[in-house]
């Protein structure tokens, strides 16, 4: 496979899952995990599921800037993944919001694809590694604006046509005309429901060892909700397979009394 689409891959995976004898429970949000010989997962709405092993693969969501236009133009110019969506903006003007490592990396990445990148950072200076910042500053088609608060993403009803930011020192509003806005202010792991039971990093990522084992026996984790670097689809697929094999290893080594 060389290329595909999110929907197609999702449908493909879903169909693959349903060819096996898997109990698929859609529209269920996990709210708590209770460790034990039989682990319990409490669901929103009152359901409880029990299992001898659990694999946490709740993913992450893009942190949003929360300004008018962001939601309206999501996937119509507002993007969160430069690796995925960058090529769609070939030859166009875009902005990257966020001057941390991921924002600066995104800007460097995009500068090779698009005609011009405006990088907008809230702080008075960039927060990325010096090497990255130096590389960014060496690029001819990048403008860096610091001390700037994005206040609105504008569009023509169909797609993004610009953004408005406030100069935090003068308070003046400025408009940048562009076709795409990449929001790179981080990912938020969907792990709130594990706080206090499974060991998380200060950023909320699930700590796992090389086998995908978490701090709780029988509980494994995989994909974007974990500490594993580079949030990529292929990596998530591999990590999911690994966690599953580890869970199987755990099960065959567990006392029979735990068997349900």
């Amino acid at each position, binding site marked *: 496979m060389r290329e595909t689409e999110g929907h197609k891959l999702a449908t493909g*995976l879903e169909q693959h899952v349903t060819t096996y004898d*898997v109990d698929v429970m859609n529209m269920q949000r996990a709210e708590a995990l209770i460790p034990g010989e039989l682990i319990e997962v409490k669901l929103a709405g009152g359901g409880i599921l029990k*299992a001898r092993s659990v694999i946490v693969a709740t993913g992450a969501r893009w942190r949003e800037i929360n300004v008018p236009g962001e939601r309206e133009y999501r996937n119509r110019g507002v993007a969160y993944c430069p690796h995925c969506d960058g*090529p769609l903006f070939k030859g166009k003007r875009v902005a990257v919001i966020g001057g941390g490592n991921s924002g600066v990396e995104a800007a460097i990445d995009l500068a090779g694809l698009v005609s011009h990148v405006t990088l907008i950072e809230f702080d008075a200076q960039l927060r990325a590694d010096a090497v990255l910042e130096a590389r960014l500053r060496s690029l001819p088609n990048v403008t860096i604006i610091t001390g700037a608060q994005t206040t609105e993403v504008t569009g023509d009803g169909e797609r993004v046509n610009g953004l408005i930011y406030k100069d935090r020192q003068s308070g003046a509003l400025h408009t940048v005309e562009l076709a795409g806005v990449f929001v790179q202010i981080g990912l938020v792991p969907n792990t709130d429901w594990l706080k206090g039971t499974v060991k998380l990093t200060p950023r909320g990522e699930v700590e796992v060892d090389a086998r995908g084992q978490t701090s709780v026996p029988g509980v494994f984790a995989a994909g974007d*909700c974990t500490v594993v670097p580079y949030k990529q*689809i292929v990596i998530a697929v591999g990590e999911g397979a690994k966690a*599953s094999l580890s869970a199987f290893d755990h099960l065959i080594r567990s006392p029979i009394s735990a068997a349900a």
Partner: protein
Amino acid sequence: MLDSNLKAQLKGYLERISEPVEIVASVDDGEKSREMLELLNDIESVSDLIKIDVRRDDAQVKPSFALRRPGTEPRVRFAGLPMGHEFTSLVLALLQTGGYPPKADPAVLETIRSLDDDYHFETFVSLTCQSCPDVVQALNLMAVLNPKVRHTMIDGAVFQNEVERRQVMAVPAVFLNGQPFGQGRMELAEIAAKLDAGSAERESARLRAKTPFDVLVIGAGPAGAAAAIYAARKGIRTGIAAERLGGQLLDTVGIEISFR
């Protein structure tokens, strides 16, 4: 209005209708009304079971038309012309009103049939919106199945005053009995669950009664799907619970590189 090719296709589909369908058209002297009547005449011309009833003095928005079985109140209405991505919605609504059985989970259909309040849904769409038809078709089906449910699709481009008045910023936007109900892509099961007060309780009882799993996966993005597939291949009792099958994949348009 329809070219001969599309007409031939439409004729093929409408041959599956087994019961008579009346189209009640509400028109004025405007250009849009004239176009709508052309479309409806084209539809009437390809099926013996479809009849048009034209009203010029009723209280309905114009131009609009509604579908009904003779002798019943119309419950599925289209305000504006359901062309573009919504043409499929029109064909499906005709088929389902005409007795063609819907393809959906029987449990969900049962939930919809048992809804016992009066529900009037209105969905604002644009004819170029890709996620709109899913929502329109789900609500149309609900209106076909349950006499207490009515649904109107509104083309925002034709009824801009309504768009302004209701402050619709993105489509699909769904209103229930005049109040905002939901925004964006929604599945039939999701809408049904949101309306059915008892469904949450039945669902949680059903989940609590499940035999413990050997492996329970939480999340159905790439990591979760891979984990479930690997576990199921071992022949152990596997479950997967998720808020939405597909996870972040559903928000990703193009996937390149990842699967090279």
